[in-house]
């Protein structure tokens, strides 16, 4: 069974760590009506109990540090420990974000240097480091596009075209940015249907959002034609750079004609994702879009970086507080500086090597998308196993028992029973060989003894939690803790 919660082991009156001491009167002139009438119901535990609780719970989670995580499109590569060290240097970690610019020269240089490096790697003219995650970068990109067209008086351009193979964040971001989303059906091959796209383009089209390489792990055959058509229609082309690991150092999105691109530092630049976040989603744009970047903007004058927060600019405004997730961005900078011009192209080359090798090893095990070379990931379909009552999710559970995390399942939506596998450049041939062998064995077993796979996982602390029960009358907090919502008045 699971560990008890913090409140289940809480003992009223127990104390953990003492903050700097306070003594004397605690009447500070705040009227009773504005004071809390009972303390928050925090757990009461000794320091040791807290340490044990979290240490033992950590054993019940798998990270890159413990397991191979072949989650497609998530690029779970090694997160260098040296980058953590850099971010924790007191000069960075104890820096107040509202320090006068004279007091944050070092941080500004770091952020300015990262911007410059990303400009080069993305082939773009300007970069913002503000967005807190990839999806946040998308929203930023949408707002930039919107502001751009407003500045040109083309206020009717409100339509964003999104291929149906795109990440769900693309349409969601477009919608959040107040745009109208139109989905474009992909070709049976998974590629963009250029003809359909051309037909959809109009004077109302603001932008087309393209994931490159595609969510099938394929490079769009007709990308240059697509870009030409969109530009011809007066619209912009956006690249969802979630899969940028496939291009890093070997292909610059700007060279392909993209106007805007975002990347996810926790994917491409090896910053740790911490179980769901933090992330960071820098956005690069071509020069015609630079004036619209969010504030604050880092500027370089006479080799010195500073930041500007111009009130009267054409900027879309700030998209978050302060300069950005600098603790994450320092890790991204560390990664780029460590690899340098020699190492960066190797990332993409070996990501491609690993994906193509594993794809080859799994050839014939399950049908895959795209017959030739893939990019950094590939998609298999578990559809043939449906006849045995086994689905993609069941194979995933089998892989958990075999000592891996699972691939991304049921995505992209256009592939039935999809399993999206991304090995990254950081996994060794031995690991890929072992995975291929285990994967093949599981698929084989699924056909011969489906009940065994359906009963997986057996080696995990829980198995197949009831998600329907969870969603029916959701329990979102420890029921032993009272609801705080007293609604006094």
């Amino acid at each position, binding site marked *: 069974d699971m560990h008890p919660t913090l409140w289940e082991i809480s003992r009223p009156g127990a*104390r953990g760590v003492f903050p700097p001491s306070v003594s004397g009167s605690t009447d500070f002139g705040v009227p009773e009506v504005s004071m809390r009438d009972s303390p928050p119901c925090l757990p009461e535990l000794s320091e040791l109990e807290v340490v044990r609780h979290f240490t033992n719970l950590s054993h019940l989670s*798998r990270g890159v540090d413990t397991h191979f995580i072949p989650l497609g499109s*998530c690029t779970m590569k090694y997160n260098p420990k040296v980058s953590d060290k850099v971010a924790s240097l007191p000069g960075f970690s104890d820096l107040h974000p509202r320090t006068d610019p004279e007091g944050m020269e070092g941080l500004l240089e770091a952020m300015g240097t990262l911007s410059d490096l990303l400009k080069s790697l993305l082939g773009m003219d300007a970069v913002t480091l503000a967005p807190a995650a990839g*999806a*946040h970068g998308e929203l930023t990109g949408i707002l930039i596009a919107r502001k751009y067209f407003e500045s040109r008086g083309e206020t009717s351009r409100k339509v964003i075209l999104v291929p149906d193979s795109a990440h*769900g964040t693309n349409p969601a971001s477009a919608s959040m940015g107040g745009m109208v989303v139109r989905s474009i059906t992909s070709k049976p091959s998974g590629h963009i249907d250029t003809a359909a796209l051309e037909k959809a383009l109009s004077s109302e089209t603001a932008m087309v959002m393209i994931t490159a390489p595609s969510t099938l792990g394929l490079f769009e055959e007709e990308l240059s034609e697509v870009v030409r058509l969109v530009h011809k229609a007066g619209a912009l082309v956006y690249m969802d750079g979630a899969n940028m690991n496939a291009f890093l150092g070997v292909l610059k999105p700007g060279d392909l004609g993209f106007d805007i691109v975002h990347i996810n530092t926790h994917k491409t630049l090896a910053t740790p994702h*911490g179980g769901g976040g933090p992330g960071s989603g820098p956005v690069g744009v071509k020069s015609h879009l630079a004036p619209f970047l969010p504030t604050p903007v880092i500027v370089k004058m006479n080799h010195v970086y500073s930041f500007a927060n111009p009130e009267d600019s054409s900027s879309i405004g700030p998209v978050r507080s302060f300069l950005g997730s600098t603790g994450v961005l320092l890790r991204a900078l560390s990664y*780029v500086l460590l690899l340098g011009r020699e190492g960066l192209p190797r990332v993409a080359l*070996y990501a491609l090597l690993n994906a193509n090798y594993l794809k080859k090893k799994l050839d014939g095990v399950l049908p895959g998308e795209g017959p030739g070379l893939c990019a950094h990931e590939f998609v298999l379909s578990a559809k043939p196993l449906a006849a045995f009552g086994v689905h993609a999710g069941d194979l995933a559970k089998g892989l958990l028992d075999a000592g891996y995390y699972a691939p991304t399942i049921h995505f992209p939506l256009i592939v039935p029973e999809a399993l999206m596998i991304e090995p990254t450049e950081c996994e060794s041939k031995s690991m890929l060989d072992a995975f291929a062998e285990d994967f093949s064995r599981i698929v084989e077993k699924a056909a011969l003894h489906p009940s065994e796979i359906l009963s997986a996982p057996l080696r995990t602390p829980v198995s197949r939690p009831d998600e329907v029960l969870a969603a029916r009358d959701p329990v979102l907090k420890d029921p032993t803790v009272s609801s705080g919502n007293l609604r006094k008045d």
Partner: protein
Amino acid sequence: MADFIPHTPSETREMLKEIGVDRLEDLLAPYPKDHVLPDLSDIPSGLTESSLIRRMQEMASRNKAGGSVPIFRGAGAYDHFIPQAVSPLVSRGEFLTAYTPYQPEVSQGLLQVIFEYQTTMANLYGMDLSNASVYDGATALAEACLVAHRQEGRSKILISEGVDPDIAKVVKTYVEGVGCSLNPIPLVSGKTRLQDVIAHLDDQTACFVGAIPTFWGTVEDFSGFADALHQNGSLLIFHANPHSLAVLRTPGSWGADLATGEGQPLGIPLSGGGPYLGILTAARPFMRKIPGRLVGKTLDREGRTAYVLTLQAREQHIRREKANSNICSNETLLSIQALVTLSLLGPEGFREAALGSMKNARKLRSRLLSIPGVSAVWEETPFFHEFILEMPMESRELSRLVLSEGFLSGLPLAGYPSPGGKNRMLWCATEMRTEEEIENLGRTIEKVLARHGGRKS
């Protein structure tokens, strides 16, 4: 000098052979030939670990950061006590290098921790529930306003001038995109008057946003706000500093529908501005309307307690353009950090830290007011741990001079709308400040003013 690629040359050769190509570069065949392997000469050569540390240490040394510089500035980011046990726990690889817990069987630790975080935040804010976090306080408030907008399709958002003006700008960026307007409600002596809110209510009013405490440090009485808003079909939203909620009345008990906050004060390093923690809590009726991940408790097929991501039907990967939000990554690691911090402090320690902040802020205020030419702005308005003073010098210049003496002063309010002003500063003292630091700051300001003539500019 590192690329974290494990392959040996012979392995690479074997793998290429298995794929059926000769060279690594052959794998680039699907890419446009014109553009592959571009010039990277503007990117420097790779550094070794020790060169990297040297270089970054050099940059870090050019920042005036806490530890070497006592911090008397808050304004949305605070130098609070972080127990030393936090970092070794949060930086454990199992948490640090995990992805979103899509596979619950191998993510129970992470899921339980998020569930505990949700429990803590819901209780701290006095609300029914909390999500698993959003990016930061500003985007949390923006998302809450969007929830209010979507609720009835109303587009008018009333926002107290007590809300951090920089956060209001972020909200503006978000809500203008979907056609909403932001309408400021003035602050009078540091307080939002109910009559001013009522005067702005109409059938397009989606919500009112108040601050606990205000950006300017004051603590308000929000009696009657909930009734007035709810009668108008509008929502009540608070943006609250979670540290203050150790002692101040909760959004929930003021009758809030949604409440947000910046979680940085809960054990998260200042770190130059991020990553921080967006707290988003809600009353039960908004459970299916709020964005972000939610972890729920359930049973597995053996009847064992288990935790899972739940209500995913709200999310972007299922609902796409009809999703509640585009949010995908959140700030889970920071939510763990806040949870560990609060678990170590417990209710009593947490309360003591808040009271320590209040006490030190009052000591600081007295000391600064003892300096000739320094005067209070609001004499009577209750405050938490921040307050505005009129200084006898242009505030940005004073800040620079004081920083060069080794103290981060209050925030210069030159350039801010009222109650900001050219010579005004927003001062803060947390429980971390000592008597000695306050006294040394006082003397430093006296010295600086004496040297520079304390000129009113």
